């Protein structure tokens, strides 16, 4: 069931800057959508337009079957978690959570019940009388979550909620937020610039670049079948290898004069292309292998769980990820690029062929 629908939503600031080009997508009931992209890609603007904090220049936004373009944020039945938590510093944790409910004229007993349920869920019961300044970063983040939960909204909005936490806590909160969202089943839109958060939390990822959608898809689709070179290089650490090559439509891709392999697709195109392959899909092979390509190993990066081999394939750089159980190859090294793991992009447009 479509829960949130964006129809050609765009944003032009008064100074003429177009932050978001006409954008359309639907969000299903209970879905966890992550908007991801580099800074300035329009992801926050898009989220703020859904929240009603930013006016929609053109297009139509509907939440739960109701067009909300001209409806106040408070009336949109949404809740938002901010990057800096945005807790009211002079109010106790209880009052921070209860404030929105009071403004809605909810009865005191109902507020009590809602706050204590949320507090139990988030392990905040013992902190209800404290001020935000007496809490740790993770606890503050939970209070911000609590403030969103008590409202029982139709839609959760998250604006880079974990970027102020240290790496360990971030990993922990990531799991907590995801688990909470599963449990409550509330449709969520989550903005982040961190591709790990996007991969781990999303039901579907929307990759944005320069105010336009590059790709919408499940984490696996976005990772393995990137729609463009931008997505290929943005998602994944290290990113997908992109090797410049030539394709003349005869089923072979030429990485250089002498190196050529079977093309992954038969596209009606000939010209410059980029051949994409994830580092972990490149295999170390014997020189006797029919598709073995000579790899000049330059240096090795130790990751613990695996190793990254940096080197050159012909004239272009290539990163190979091997499991820690495999030995570091010595002497002449040959790699194989499995056809099923290859993607090919148009060199000019960056789009997948």
């Amino acid at each position, binding site marked *: 069931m479509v829960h949130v629908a964006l129809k050609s939503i765009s944003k032009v600031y008064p100074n003429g800057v177009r932050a978001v080009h006409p954008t359309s997508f639907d969000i299903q009931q209970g879905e966890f959508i992550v908007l991801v992209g580099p800074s300035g890609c329009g992801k926050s603007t898009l989220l703020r337009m859904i*929240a009603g*904090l930013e006016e929609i220049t053109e297009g139509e936004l509907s939440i739960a079957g109701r067009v909300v373009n001209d409806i*106040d*944020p*408070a009336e949109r039945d*949404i*809740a*938002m978690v*901010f*990057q*800096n938590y*945005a*807790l*009211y*510093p*002079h109010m106790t944790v209880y009052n921070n959570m209860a*404030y*929105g409910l009071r*403004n*809605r004229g909810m009865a005191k007993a109902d507020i009590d019940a809602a706050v204590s349920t949320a507090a139990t869920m988030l392990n905040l019961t013992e902190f209800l009388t404290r001020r935000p300044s007496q809490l740790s970063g993770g606890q503050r983040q939970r209070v911000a979550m609590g*403030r969103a939960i008590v409202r029982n909204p139709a839609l959760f909005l998250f604006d880079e909620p974990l970027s102020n936490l240290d790496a360990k806590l971030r990993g922990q909160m990531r799991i907590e937020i995801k688990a909470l969202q599963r449990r409550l089943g509330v449709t969520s839109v989550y903005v982040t610039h961190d591709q790990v958060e996007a991969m781990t939390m999303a039901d579907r990822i929307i990759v944005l670049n320069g105010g336009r959608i590059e790709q919408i898809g499940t984490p696996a689709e976005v990772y393995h079948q990137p729609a463009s070179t931008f997505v290929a290089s943005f998602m994944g650490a290290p990113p997908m290898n992109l090797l410049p090559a030539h394709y003349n439509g005869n089923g072979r891709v030429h990485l250089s004069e002498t190196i050529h392999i079977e093309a992954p697709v038969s596209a009606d195109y000939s010209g410059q292309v980029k051949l994409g392959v994830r580092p972990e899909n490149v295999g170390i092979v014997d020189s006797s292998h029919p598709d073995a390509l000579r790899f000049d190993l330059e240096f090795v990066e130790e990751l613990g769980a695996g190793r990254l081999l940096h080197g050159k394939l012909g004239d272009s750089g290539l990163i190979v990820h091997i499991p820690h159980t495999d030995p570091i190859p010595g002497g002449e090294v040959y790699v194989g690029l499995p056809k099923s793991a290859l993607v090919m992009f148009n060199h000019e447009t960056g789009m997948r062929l």
Partner: protein
Amino acid sequence: MTVAAAPVLVSRSRARRKISWQTISDHAILIAGSLLMILPVFAAFMTIGASDVEISRHGMQFTDGSHLAENFDKALFTQGGFTGAITGSTMLLNSFILGIGFAIGKIIFGMMAAYAIVYFRLRFATFAFWVIFTTLLLPLEVRILPTYEVVHGMGLINTYTGLILPLVASATATFFFRQFFLSIPEELVEAARIDGAGPVKFFFDILVPLSRTMIAAIFIIMFVYGWNQYLWPTLITTDEAMFTLVRGIKQIYQSIDGGSDIPEFGRALALAFIAILPPVLVVVIFQSWFVKGLVESDK
């Protein structure tokens, strides 16, 4: 060994002596400064205890006489002035009304003006702010005649309203509150919007409590400023029952005690001493708030 150790000892003790000279000179300067500040007040207090005749003959006194209580009593409760309609305690009350009314008025106007400038997308908001700011160049003393004319025309001569109102529009308070509001994170405003707090609710539920320390700091500054107003109260109050302490002291000093031709020095000094106390007390009591308000923010 001993030869090697000796120079270390010498240099260490030399360093210590250097520090102590520094300390002594620091303290001497501080003590001299403190005496400079305290002695006149001390002399005034001691002189209150002397009789008017003695003061007129020997000047300021540094030893306590026997008239201290008497002079304080006279200063506060004996009728004085040309019409004999005013006592020190009435003037004290008037001063409090002026000081508190002035401070609260400035805070209310300053906060509301700053709220409008910072949080509402007004056309020319920045321009309006700078217009307000330039009024710093036009203190009451510059515009005193037109202001008097306006207040007179409104029939507010000899009223508390006339005393306070022309002084409360304040660029200083507006400026301080504007800077403070600008430092409040935008996300807090947005969170409140999503929580359904309209402009009025946001102002009273969020902004006012957040500004507590700022309000306290501005209250202290403005209370002292209002308390010490001299020119405007002198112009606007012709009825002695409306006199404030700061302007009234002169009146008392000028009025000659019945019979003798000696001005009432003791009584005037007692009044002057009383006039110093409230600003001092306000600053001492609210000092920690004051520093907090100017230095740190509760965010």
